[in-house]
């Protein structure tokens, strides 16, 4: 009871901190526009019928309505039609695009995580393989994804497969590196103990190495979750995928002058997608690591 109460208390506290943080950002945002934005007119303030004109004392270029639209303008743009005469609202359109992108990212995430797990398993059991291959694994991540994405599309064709490969490419790396560490996490005496039981490599892997590595795995998966979303969004451009957030961002970027709120809304939805994927992995972590010390942290 006491523990449950404490968890409840700390959760409420964290929610309060988050809400405060969001409020500070939103108020600060409008404050910047109030001081250095463009003149604006409040029609009908709080339903009183009064109109107030505001003329900010400065004209900061980064606070204009083009570079920094009002955040409530961005939110209300979500409810407006995505194109003139369109039945669909911007919010609906972006939600559909986000779901589409998430599917690509999720496939890449799963494939990348499995690839990372297999690679780390091989490396942990073979020093030779580790020394020979790990430098290339690291080097692979030094290639900018914007340079690599068109090459992957060139090789595999403009298709969802290419996008998935790009998401995989960003996912496998953190999983590989963390799992090399995680699979080596057990106490050397735990491995001696398994040897004294005459347990083979596979049994030792299943009963000791893998369970001991799970905290490392989840840390990597949380990084990989957000990376896979970024990879899918970047890949959709050269991949020629019309239905995802990547294309939406490119399109709204081209229409920025006529409606900056749309691009901001697309960015907002992208980050909400990334955070949601992260949260899903975090929830899985809490379930899988239940009962271990320190499972509630991080």
């Amino acid at each position, binding site marked *: 009871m006491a523990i449950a109460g404490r968890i409840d208390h700390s959760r409420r506290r964290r929610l309060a901190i988050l809400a405060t943080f969001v409020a500070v950002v939103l108020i600060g945002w409008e404050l910047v526009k109030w001081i250095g934005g463009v003149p604006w007119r409040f029609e009908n303030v709080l339903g009183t019928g009064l109109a107030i004109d505001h003329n900010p004392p400065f004209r900061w270029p980064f606070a204009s309505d083009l570079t920094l639209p009002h955040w409530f303008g961005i939110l209300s743009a979500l409810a407006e039609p995505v194109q003139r005469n369109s039945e669909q609202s911007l919010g609906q359109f972006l939600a559909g695009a986000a779901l589409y992108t998430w599917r690509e990212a999720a496939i890449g995430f799963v494939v990348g995580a499995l690839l990372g797990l297999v690679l780390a398993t091989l490396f942990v059991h073979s020093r030779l393989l580790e020394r020979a291959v790990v430098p290339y694994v690291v080097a692979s991540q030094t290639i900018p994804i914007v340079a690599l994405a068109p090459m992957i599309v060139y090789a595999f064709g403009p298709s969802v497969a290419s996008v998935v490969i790009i998401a995989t490419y960003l996912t496998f790396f953190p999983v590989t590196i963390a799992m090399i560490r995680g699979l080596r996490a057990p106490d050397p005496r735990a491995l001696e103990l398994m040897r*004294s039981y005459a347990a083979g490599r596979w049994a030792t892997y299943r009963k000791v190495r893998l369970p001991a590595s799970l905290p490392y795995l989840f840390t990597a998966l949380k990084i990989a979750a957000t990376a896979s979303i970024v990879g899918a969004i970047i890949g959709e451009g050269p991949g020629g995928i019309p239905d995802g957030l990547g294309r939406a961002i490119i399109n709204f970027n081209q229409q920025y002058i006529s409606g900056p709120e749309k691009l901001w809304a697309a960015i907002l939805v992208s980050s909400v997608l990334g955070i949601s994927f992260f949260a899903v992995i975090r929830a899985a972590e809490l379930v899988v690591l239940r009962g271990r010390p320190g499972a509630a942290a991080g």
Partner: protein
Amino acid sequence: MAEPASQWVVRLAAVGKTFSTSGTATTAALQGIELDISRGEFISLIGPSGCGKSTLLRVIGDLVAPTAGQVAVNGKPAARARLDRDYGMVFQAPVLFDWRTVEENVKLPLELMGYDGPRRTARALEMLELVELGDFLHHHPYQLSGGMQQRVAIARALAFEPSILLMDEPFGALDEMTRERMNQEVLRIWERTGITVVFVTHSIPEAVFLSSRVVVMSPRPGRITDVIEVDLPRPRDVETREQPRYFELITAVREALRRGGAEAEGGLAPDLASIDRTMAEGGIG
């Protein structure tokens, strides 16, 4: 000795172990070890840090391969004995798995050895009751004290009925009071199960209290310098620790250690109090 060969659980003949330290340099962790351990004996290996007592324990358990000599366990090579699951191991740290409950920790070796579900459960309960932790089946290791954790480790080591229990300074990390209680506990288990125990320790009183024989070792190179029969009557209990014979034997072991140390140090007696205190030791300890 005239006894039949089957009486010996462990036979060590001219066992040596050399580690290569850096490139061409080598360290003799063990040299010319001759030791026979008969069924049901309680043997302590005692000596200062670096005398190779932990290495010797690992050689017996086939965790470290000797570079010279023969190791026979239950009339088989040590590797065969390991594959036959003749060894139960207990280390200085309990090495319990946090993701498993106390009961599941004890069941781990049984899972590996193909015991079926009901037998695993029955065996784990029996062992945990033996170490008086029957009420803690569903606790996680980190919820227990150090002494209780070590008792779980002992229950786990005994669960699959090995014929020999190898204990590497199992109570070295515990406070003196807990240590004495654990000594009593381990004797009770030993008497009930009739298992052969090889016990590595830094503590002279512990070695004397527990053992049927104390094997005194000294470093550089690690070797056996003395074997002292402990003729204290059994069962041993708190009063054993107050008998004059107990103190005589402690003195005998201390002097044997000093002699061994004096040989190694070329006439200089090592600070034996510091040997008693030393808990951590290096890789060849």
